[in-house]
């Protein structure tokens, strides 16, 4: 237990101290303090993981309870923290990448009037995310789950004087509440049947249950809604693109590397439940694959550098859920790790570009920046090659593992979608890369003033670039590290990494090369503008994300408003009736005027005086007699 609390509490302490005293601190201190706190948490995480590794494989779990969270209606639900190999992986990524992004933020946010507030929020996010993955039961997980949503709300709306940022923050919060409710009702159902929401208790019970009962399908589905909202799976995905209103390091940390993968964590964590809910399990894979290809199509025509990356995140999350859906849990976790490396890298590199261009995010005003920003260009290239799945970059290995598992398990349709999406990914990522760094500058004024970022920003980016290039080497170790988790309960027979047929690999990589070539041909050789094709009907459709925002407005937002107005009309009717009675009494009182004063306040006063008199009289008398 000791060792886990510190990991969680350190960032919380950082957040609270900066919130309370940030105004008094010298300028640079909040950022340095926040980074140090996360670094300490990172060291504590390593220590805890080492300790975990020394335990025998069958009992590889550190757990403890800090008293009851709630009790009184059944077995208590405790403040329970648990570390096992699965949460250990998340722990290292959250604190490790989190630390790098904190360091980077010291440069990126320097000079912003809300710098202290920013670091306070960022530390709060790390705290909430650590609570989420270290939670030992579903209820504590839900608290972390909602608090990361709150941190995300704070940071999306960080520049709160921008209307678009404020609206995006609200949208993200409300859509995530849909997910929170799914988790809430799901865990209530589980508690009802099993009188516990702690993982081991539930999983023991699941081990002997018969798959396919409606109860399991429903609970799994409700919990999946939570994952869907948090990880922006179709159709609860729209908030993620709007979330790009937040500062770019936030997009890297929360909306790419860590928080949005919480859904993958939850589903992987609950693999014994997915065994019992085959229909929901299958659906997770299908929606994941659909999200992957759907988001990739939207990314084709985006004009904003961050929006392209946002849709690529959606698409990659789709891959991870595809992996969960076909039971390739280790591959999903592996892809989470490599994605955290290369996507954090891409966002931070994009942040350096935006920083260099004084906040400009529009592709149509970039171009030719390779000369001005060589370090950023090379690191961005590393990230692009990784996400596009070129060997031997990290993304290649994890994507191959996912597609191989899909193929081996007989999900040929999902496999095919994954392969096609790989080609599309290479296209839109290289489109982004070429439009940003090559060709001729489309805005001379911005180009002239562009400058490479300071070291405090480029060093974290460089470290991430190394990880994005070489991260694929972690696969084997990850496989061995996670094996005890998946061996413990039935339901993860195909969790281990396994290669697909060699021709599948050749096909995937081949399509990626074609995608890259197409991007090269269209945007560099023929030199088409970034806006090319967006005015055609399909282009417009894709750029506007298939019109889903409008659809949500139509089915959810507007009906709520109309119903609300209907209730208001109805309420006026009720009030009319009440006033009728009141007027009647008033008129009656007027009739009695000769006898009384006709003032209600006099009546009220006399009622009270009378009541008191009776009360006092009997109180005294009662005492005397009694």
């Amino acid at each position: 237990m000791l060792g886990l609390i510190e990991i969680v509490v350190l960032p919380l302490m950082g957040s609270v101290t900066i919130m309370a005293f940030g105004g008094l601190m010298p300028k640079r201190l909040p950022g340095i303090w926040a980074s140090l706190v996360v670094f300490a948490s990172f060291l504590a995480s390593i220590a805890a993981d080492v300790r975990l590794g020394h335990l025998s494989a069958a009992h590889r779990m550190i757990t403890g309870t800090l008293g009851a969270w709630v009790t009184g209606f059944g077995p208590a639900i405790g403040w329970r923290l648990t570390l096992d190999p699965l949460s250990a992986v998340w722990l290292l990524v959250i604190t490790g990448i989190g630390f790098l992004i904190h360091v980077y933020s010291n440069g990126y946010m320097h000079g912003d009037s809300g710098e202290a507030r920013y670091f306070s929020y960022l530390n709060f996010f790390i705290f909430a995310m650590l609570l989420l993955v270290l939670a030992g039961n579903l209820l504590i997980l839900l608290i972390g789950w909602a608090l990361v949503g709150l941190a995300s709300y704070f940071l999306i709306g960080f520049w709160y004087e921008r209307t678009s940022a404020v609206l995006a923050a609200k949208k993200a919060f409300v859509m995530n509440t849909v997910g929170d409710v799914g988790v809430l009702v799901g865990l209530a159902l589980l508690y009802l049947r099993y009188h516990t929401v702690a993982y081991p208790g539930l999983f023991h019970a699941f081990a002997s249950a018969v798959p396919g009962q409606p109860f399991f399908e429903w609970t799994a589905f409700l919990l999946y809604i939570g994952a869907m909202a948090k990880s922006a799976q179709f159709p609860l995905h729209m908030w993620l693109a709007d979330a790009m209103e937040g500062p770019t390091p936030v997009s890297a940390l929360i909306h790419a590397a860590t928080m949005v993968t919480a859904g993958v964590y939850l589903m992987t964590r609950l693999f014994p439940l997915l065994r019992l809910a085959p229909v929901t399990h299958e659906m997770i894979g299908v929606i994941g694959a659909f999200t992957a290809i759907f988001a990739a199509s939207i990314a084709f025509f985006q004009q904003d550098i961050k929006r392209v990356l946002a849709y690529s995140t959606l698409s990659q999350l789709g891959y991870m859920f595809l992996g969960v859906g076909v039971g390739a849990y280790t591959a999903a976790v592996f892809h989470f790790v490599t994605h955290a490396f290369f996507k954090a890298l891409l966002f931070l590199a994009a942040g350096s570009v935006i920083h260099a261009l004084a906040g400009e995010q529009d592709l149509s005003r970039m171009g030719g920046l390779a000369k001005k920003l060589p370090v950023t260009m090379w690191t961005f290239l590393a990230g692009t090659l990784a996400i596009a799945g070129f060997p031997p970059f990290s993304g290649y290995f994890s994507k191959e593992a996912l597609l191989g598992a899909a193929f081996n398990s007989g999900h040929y349709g999902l496999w095919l979608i994954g392969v096609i999406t790989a080609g599309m990914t290479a296209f839109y990522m290289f489109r982004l890369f070429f439009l940003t760094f090559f060709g001729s500058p489309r805005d001379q004024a911005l180009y002239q003033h562009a400058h490479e970022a300071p070291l405090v920003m480029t060093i974290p980016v460089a470290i991430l670039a190394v990880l994005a290039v070489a991260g694929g080497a972690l696969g084997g170790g990850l496989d061995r590290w996670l094996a005890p988790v998946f061996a413990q309960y039935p339901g993860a027979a195909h969790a281990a990494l396994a290669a697909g047929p060699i021709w599948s690999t050749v096909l995937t990589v081949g399509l990626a090369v074609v995608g890259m070539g197409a991007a090269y041909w269209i945007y560099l050789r023929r030199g088409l503008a970034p806006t090319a094709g967006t005015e055609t009907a399909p282009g417009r459709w894709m750029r506007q994300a298939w019109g889903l925002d409008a659809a949500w407005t139509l089915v959810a937002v507007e009906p709520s408003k109309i119903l609300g107005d209907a209730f208001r009309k109805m309420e006026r009717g009720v009030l009319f009736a009440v006033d009728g009675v009141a007027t009647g009494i008033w008129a009656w009182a007027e009739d009695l005027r000769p006898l009384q004063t006709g003032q209600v306040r006099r009546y009220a006063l006399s009622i009270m005086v009378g009541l008191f008199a009776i009360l006092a009289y009997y109180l005294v008398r009662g005492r005397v007699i009694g």
Partner: protein
Amino acid sequence: MVLVWLLAVPLLGAAAVLAVPNRSAKAWAATGGLVELALFVLLWVSARHGVNWPWIAAWGIRFQLGADGLSLLMLGLTAVVFAAVLISSDAGAGRVYYFWLLLLEFASIGLFSALDLFLFYIFWEVLLIPVFFLLTGWGGEGGRSAAMRWLVMNLVGSLFMLVGIIAVGVLHSQLTGHLTFGIAQLAGTAWAPAVAPLLFLAFFLAFAIKAPLWPLHGWMPEAYGRAPAPVTALLSGVLSKAGIYGFLRVMVPLFLPELRAYQTPLLILAAAGLVAGGLLALRQQDMKMVAAYGSLSHMGMMALGVFSLTRAGVLGATFYMVAHGLMVGGLFLVLGLLENRAGTRAIAAMKGLNRSAPRLAAYFLFFVLGSLGLPGLPGFAGEYMIIQGLVAHDVVIAVIAGAVLVLAAWYMLRAFQATMQGPVGNVAIPDLLARQVAWLLPLAAVVTVLGVWPSTLTLPAAPSLYHAIHLLAAKG
């Protein structure tokens, strides 16, 4: 005897403020509120002996007070919210204002500790009067008509209840041969099938109007709207709980078979109110009314917990009463501070105020997040327990209750963002003063502790919580 002192101090305080000059009335009243709070702490740690004196012997009425788990929580809520309200009220309001506030506290304390139905009724009626005068005297223009609605609707409800109380006493004496109004003695009586629905309805109406439960909330919009912010904080923070408390204290022991028989329609009614309140809150243009209708929606949530007739649901409703009382009380007080500064309550007239008043915005956001049920704050714990109770009965109702949480996030954030965020307008307001933070911070701290460790309340309260829970436990 601590309990008797708890009842006596506000009454003595009320008498005292009438005797002091206007300018020191607030100091006296606030001191009274703090003494009351200290007495409550003493009650919490002491043996909590009640009193049971004979009173009107001929009618079998006794002066019986007690503080079991349920009462204790409500007394604590009363003491805390009243202390905050007395401290935060305007010093220039005059001694009569403080007189009525303290009298209201006296009535609330009495109501939440009375164990004899007749005594309960007397406090129930006394409660109406201070509110009536606070609305007419300090409700500004339109306060008078708000007061009328309040009085008419509540008197209708309590008249039914009076008939009901006399009827249950008489019927019970016919069955057993002795006349009593003790709730514990009346509990579990099997009422004749012909009168049971009428008795049930008589009590139900009184409690549902007081809460209020939709669609019996006719008095609410104007009363909440007209009352000065501290009084609104009391109406929604403390007095609204009287209705839910009545369900738990009176109806569950006396009418458990009837509650079971009508459970489905009751759940539907409560769920409809939950949804209606949320949708109405979404369409308000006045920030105080957003909170008012949000509160109406939350009353439906509490009623759902009671009507689930499960231990989790009832415990959740009880916990939620305290949580909601503290948070909505805090919310209305903050809105009052905002209204004083901005001179308006119209959402459209304010924007970007966070820039000039960041501390005010932070507390506003805190209570908004609490009200929308953010996990980690106590509203969530109450909602969780209520939903835990509901899934045992009906998953569909549980899902509806959950869906309203999404609605709550929407309307609450809408009100916050529209006033505090967005482009800075040409209005700037002064930020919170140190003396205002001095009572807001402790309130927020109490709320946070309850959210992080709801078991601080559920643990001591639950085992001996109250008769109702034992009844439910016995029936499974």
